[in-house]
């Protein structure tokens, strides 16, 4: 058995009202890739932050390199040889690759001046050792996401890292780039470096990881050898319940055509997309990250300019050039980025719900607060939004409740067609189940729903029909029994090299 690099012993971490980690055990060997999986809210981030010293555990201990350690700050763990690569990189965009790699660790010459030639030479050596072709004098902001990731890894190697922690490294990169990443990880592994790998993509976990640990609601479920477990078992361990309990039954009669899109193009982003959506139907819009599903939605909503083609809402041609016109013609759009594009966090639940329809609560521009308050109280009851009153700032709500505020807003504002972009991102399983029920109920009440989601399971579980996009174009359409994670993936990645099927 290889040397144990990291041992986490019954670590517990509390936050007010939440047990984020409950006596979790975890260990990592040298030269091992250990995957960490679980639903949102399972405690993966907290565990990583405890290991990296960003949080101090309330109980239990961490043994790193054979020694019991208590980190006071992430800085100490970094010095000791732990590198965490978060989804948001810790790089300085206006500095060069070499400067970033040697940040805080620069080779010096006389008078404490930086020895640039040496730094550049060593960067080059470090990068080429991993077969990475990046010019050390390039600025980091000019690199692709995948290249920046490589710079992070090179920086970690420069700091004598013994344990790399990668938090969803493939979320923002293409499959081809992901393959390159896997190759580099194999090199690290061969060097005896230990890796903790967090990902929602189970396929790649089976491809690269030696072991996989499942967390659920802050508890350790178990650690498995990837060779000794299959994908379905892993999913049921993560979710902790059967899929039938999560998704409401499909069905319901689809009515007349609510939205029909003809050869729509949005700049260079979306090209020649056509499909239609009927009343009472949930249509999935699937595809990989970067397949421009969100851009298509922005085109329909008037927040990105349509450059060719047209679309009809309820049989009428629409030519909206701004969101206000789209809303008037019956479209609602629940955006994927709740904090930046959806909510005004510093304002009340009421103000957030009535945002697009404020005029309905006003007489001669004066807001009728009583009417607004009564209405919002009804909405909060209807969607089971948990808060003391409608005056509570949305900032103080959980992810699930925030999302329900947005549902309330858009169901009221839209007149027939509702676009939902990643409606369950960042909410816990319980809230997810509630949201799925809300979506199905809306469809049954006659609303036409376009559901954009990157969670294949969700698309399969919720949608009556699925259209798949690839690189800004429509790749295909699936109905009824044709809908499966495999068939969607097949369309989404068709003709792509290097894709490894589950």
């Amino acid at each position, binding site marked *: 058995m290889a040397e144990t690099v990291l041992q986490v012993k019954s670590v517990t971490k509390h936050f007010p009202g939440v047990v*984020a980690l409950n006596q979790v055990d975890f260990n990592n060997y040298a030269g091992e890739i250990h995957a960490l999986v679980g639903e949102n809210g399972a405690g993966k981030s907290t565990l990583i932050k405890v290991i990296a010293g960003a949080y101090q555990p309330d109980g239990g201990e961490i043994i790193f390199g054979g020694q019991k350690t208590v980190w006071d700050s992430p800085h100490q763990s970094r010095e000791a040889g732990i590198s965490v690569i978060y989804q948001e990189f810790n790089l300085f965009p206006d500095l060069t690759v070499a400067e970033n790699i040697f940040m805080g660790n620069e080779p010096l010459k006389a008078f404490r001046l930086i020895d640039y030639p040496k730094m550049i030479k060593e960067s080059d050596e470090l990068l080429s050792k991993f077969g990475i072709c990046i010019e050390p004098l390039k600025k980091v902001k000019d690199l692709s996401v995948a290249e920046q990731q490589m710079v992070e890894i090179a920086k970690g190697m420069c700091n004598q890292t013994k344990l790399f922690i990668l938090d969803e490294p493939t979320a923002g990169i293409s499959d081809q780039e992901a393959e390159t990443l896997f190759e580099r990880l194999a090199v690290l592994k061969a060097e005896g470096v230990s890796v903790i790998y967090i990902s929602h993509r189970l396929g790649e976990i089976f491809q690269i990881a030696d072991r996989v640990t499942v967390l659920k609601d802050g508890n350790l479920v178990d650690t498995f050898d990837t060779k000794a477990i299959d994908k379905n078992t892993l999913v049921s361990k993560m979710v902790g319940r059967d899929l039938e309990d999560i998704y409401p039954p499909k069905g319901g009669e689809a009515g007349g055509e609510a939205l029909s899109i003809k050869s729509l193009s949005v700049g260079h982003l979306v090209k020649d997309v056509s499909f239609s959506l009927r009343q009472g139907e949930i249509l999935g819009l699937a595809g990989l990250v970067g397949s421009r599903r969100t851009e298509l939605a922005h085109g329909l909503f008037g927040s990105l300019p349509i450059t060719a083609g047209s679309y009809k809402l309820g049989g009428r041609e629409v030519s909206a050039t701004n969101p*206000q016109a789209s*809303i008037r013609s019956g479209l609602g759009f629940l955006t994927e980025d709740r904090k930046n594009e959806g909510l*005004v966090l510093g304002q009340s639940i009421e103000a957030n719900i009535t*945002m697009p329809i404020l005029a309905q609560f006003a007489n001669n521009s004066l*807001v009728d607060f009583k009417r607004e308050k009564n209405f919002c109280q009804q909405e909060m009851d209807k969607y089971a939004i948990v808060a003391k009153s409608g005056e509570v700032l949305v900032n*103080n709500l959980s992810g699930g409740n925030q999302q329900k505020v947005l549902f309330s807003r858009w169901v009221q504002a839209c007149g027939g067609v509702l676009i939902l972009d990643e409606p369950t991102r960042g909410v816990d399983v319980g809230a997810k189940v509630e949201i799925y029920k809300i979506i199905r109920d809306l469809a049954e009440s006659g609303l036409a729903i376009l559901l954009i989601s990157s969670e294949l399971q969700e698309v399969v579980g919720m949608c009556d029909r699925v259209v798949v996009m690839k690189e800004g174009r429509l790749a295909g359409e699936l109905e009824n029994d044709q809908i499966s994670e495999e068939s969607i993936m097949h369309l989404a990645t068709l003709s792509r090299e290097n894709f490894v099927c589950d």
Partner: protein
Amino acid sequence: MSGTTINLERAETSRLAQAKPFFQKYGLYVFLVLLILIAVSTSPQFLAPRNIQNLLTEGAPLGMAALGQTFVILTAGLDLSVGSLMSSVAVIATSIAPDNVMILPIFLIAIAFGALVGFVNGWLVTKRKVSPFLATLATMIVLQGLRFAWTKGAPLSGHLPPGFRVLGTGTLLSIPVNLWALGFLILVFAIVLYRTTYGRKLYLVGGNPRAAFLSGIHADRVIIAAYMICAVLASIAGLFLVGYVGSVDNWVGKGYELDSIAAVMMGGASFKGGKGGIFGSLAGVLVLIVIYNLVLLLGFPIQTQLVVKGLVIILAASFYLTRGD
């Protein structure tokens, strides 16, 4: 993983909110009371009716300017052209025939001029994406230049209609006329801010312009209107100021832009927008004018006013304001 992150953040904020002491919420008012107590105990004249009246008369134009500045700062902007606009309006008023019949036309011209300047500011900020600092700095300089070109740099030899002196220094029912005017403006703009859909939209756009836009709010129009409200109020403030001072040079409104910004910020606003309000800003104005008054009453050299003012702003900022809040 974002689910956990959100939960944790929420836990952090609620803990902060609980720990947030009383004076972080009402800090400015506590501060103002303390300042007045100091004033009363160190100078017996402070509470004399005559002094209170002087103090408020002198402070009214700043109150008007701060009222307008509040609207702009709520949009995550700021208006540096306020002082220059006040001076320009004063010059315009003095350049028109010194006849009481002209008071109403002067007001109308000043308001129209202010609306134009505000529109230019708002247009630059929204349609041309110029940063509010640069846009209003440029407007400030252009107005200054126009004023100089018009007056040739010399103090104006013209005269105001005598009625202006009454507006600036007179009383009605033993309350200064300009305080009546300030009170009226506060009433109007408090209704605009707290009762109308426009006021609600202003907070929404200030809090998250992207989300507001995607909810069908014409964010640009809301922001342009805020700059216009600010400039119109600055113009009115300029007229009352020139009425109070009585004579006009090119610099009569100098410093009002920064004083009004300081007052609004002390009143709990944030340069990130979406936060603050009229009554906080007015309390900020009171802090500033009480300091001025106190320095005079205590017989300190006039030059120390600025030192004391700066120190008090620092004190207020470190006493109850939190960064980025």
